[in-house]
């Protein structure tokens, strides 16, 4: 008996976590998938009715706005964060004496809660007393910056706040990438008299392709999951103008009492995440095996 226990102890130690993951991740996904195929409203029902919830979902103008917003927000957030991150990393990579301090400052927003970030930017961007009022106070009476309360522009304030929060992190990723490029090749290029900007565009940046991919995955993942920032900054408003899939799901689940819609929107979110993450994880795990 003791011998058996001794032999199986590693398995026994891993078992509770394994069961927990099976139930609370995979079992729960299955539950949500199931319920998304029913007519559940306030309480879950378990008779499968087909794709009725998904039909309702894609017929809903609010969901339409949420998806559109996700594409606008996601595209701008990912592209600008990568561009800014790369720019800051290259600037910081020029033997800056105070590099440590500057890096710390670029990265600290990452330690903050999105709720804190949203609260701060809500105050800065509020037209009455924030930036707009300040610039007006400087004598530019006609200056207007009221994106926060403009239904057409509010989603861009979410982009601004999200960039402030996360671009420093992208910078850190790229900086690590720049430092891992083979110094010998760069020296050789310099000896040949190739201008610095050519060294970047022709040698360094192309060799960082894996880092671009990682940054893309991380940022896309952040974008799809974005919830707290919208809640704190705009509350999804004005109206539903800044709804994202995550806030739509939450509203359906906890304030509208529409479990079917909540489940189907969650499943769509998961499909989007999977479409991005699965190929990446697959290639990563395969690369590890090849090593």
């Amino acid at each position, binding site marked *: 008996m003791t011998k058996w226990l*001794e032999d199986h102890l590693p*398995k026994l*130690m*891993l078992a*509770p*976590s394994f069961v927990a*993951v099976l139930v*609370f*991740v995979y079992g*729960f996904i299955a*539950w*949500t998938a199931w319920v998304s195929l029913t007519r559940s409203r306030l309480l*879950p029902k378990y008779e499968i009715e087909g794709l009725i919830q998904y039909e309702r979902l894609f017929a809903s103008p609010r969901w339409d706005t949420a998806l559109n917003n996700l594409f606008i927000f996601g595209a701008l957030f990912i592209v600008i964060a990568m561009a800014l991150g790369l720019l*800051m990393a290259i*600037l910081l990579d*020029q033997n*800056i004496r105070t590099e440590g301090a*500057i890096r710390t*400052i670029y*990265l*600290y*927003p*990452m*330690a*903050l*809660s*999105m*709720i*804190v*970030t949203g*609260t*701060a930017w809500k*105050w*800065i961007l509020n037209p009455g007393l924030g*930036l707009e009022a*300040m610039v007006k106070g400087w004598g530019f009476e006609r200056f207007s910056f009221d994106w926060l309360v403009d239904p057409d522009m509010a989603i861009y304030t979410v982009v601004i706040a999200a960039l402030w929060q996360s671009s420093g992190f992208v910078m*850190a*990723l790229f900086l690590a990438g*720049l*430092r891992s490029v083979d*110094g010998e090749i*760069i020296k050789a290029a310099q000896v040949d*008299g*190739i201008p*610095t900007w050519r*060294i970047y565009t022709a040698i360094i940046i192309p060799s960082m392709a894996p880092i671009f991919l*990682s940054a893309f995955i991380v940022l896309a*993942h952040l974008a799809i999951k974005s*919830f*707290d920032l919208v*809640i*704190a900054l705009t509350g999804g408003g004005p109206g539903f103008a800044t709804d994202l899939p*995550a806030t739509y799901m*939450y509203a359906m*689940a906890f304030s509208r009492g529409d479990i079917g819609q909540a489940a189907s929107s*969650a*499943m769509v*979110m*998961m499909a989007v995440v999977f479409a991005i993450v699965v190929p990446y*994880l697959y290639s990563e795990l395969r690369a590890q095996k090849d090593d």
Partner: protein
Amino acid sequence: MTDLATSPARGQSQSVRILLRWSLYIALGFFVMIYLLPLFVMITTSLKSLEEIRTGDLVALPREVTIDAWLTAWSGACTGIKCEGVRPYFWNSVLIAVPAVAISTLVGAINGYVVAQWRFRGANVIFALMLFGCFIPFQVVLLPMARVLGIIGIAGTIQGLIFVHVVYGIGFTTLFFRNYYVTIPVELTKAAKVDGAGFFRIFWSIFLPLSLPIIVVTVIWQFTQIWNDFLFGVSFSQAGTQPVTVALNNIVNSTTGVKEYNVDMAAAIIAALPTLLVYVVAGKYFIRGLTAGSVKG
């Protein structure tokens, strides 16, 4: 290290180089300002009176420093009906974060140790399944979790939130420890086994003493995640058990009475202080966790 700056390309004159150097510092300084501006505005706003906020400039320093807003934010601001400030919710967050961080780190250490050093058949599949769990959007588990918490009888409690954070933290903590222990040769474990040491003895006397850096990384990562969490907090708490992020959001969005921006800012800084402090003290480990959690994941 790409040494581009020390050996500039040929043909550049001294003055061009100085000019480039200056514009480099100006650009870096510009970004520094952008990153610090919101923090600066938060701090100065929290130290102003409402009167001064209405009449003054967003970025102006306070003419008269007052800590009234901080006192109100800590113990008097209203979150809906109750007006007790963020203090009780701050302690809720502590009560949630401390056990959840401790348990998930311990479980992750054991899991990582098993997966990396006791490679039985199927261990890698289990690890892959756990890893995958790190990436799901949590919206997909919110509804069933709400029901399960109700069934176990811990819905709306601190214990319920601890439970949720532990369950969904295991993936990352296991990943951290597994990637750390995998660099330690398996021969070490094998030799110890030959010498008669058991599973726990090897963990306790060989692996744990080596683990300080990864424990720090994991604790910081988990603490930051759990302290800053809003989705689980808002979904699975009720009046009285909300974490500080939820209370902050309620204070900022409460519609009763005059909008007290200085109190909002003070409350936001209070909610941010623990993770900011961790970042300032142990930034190196924080960044290591970020990159390990995202790149290797």
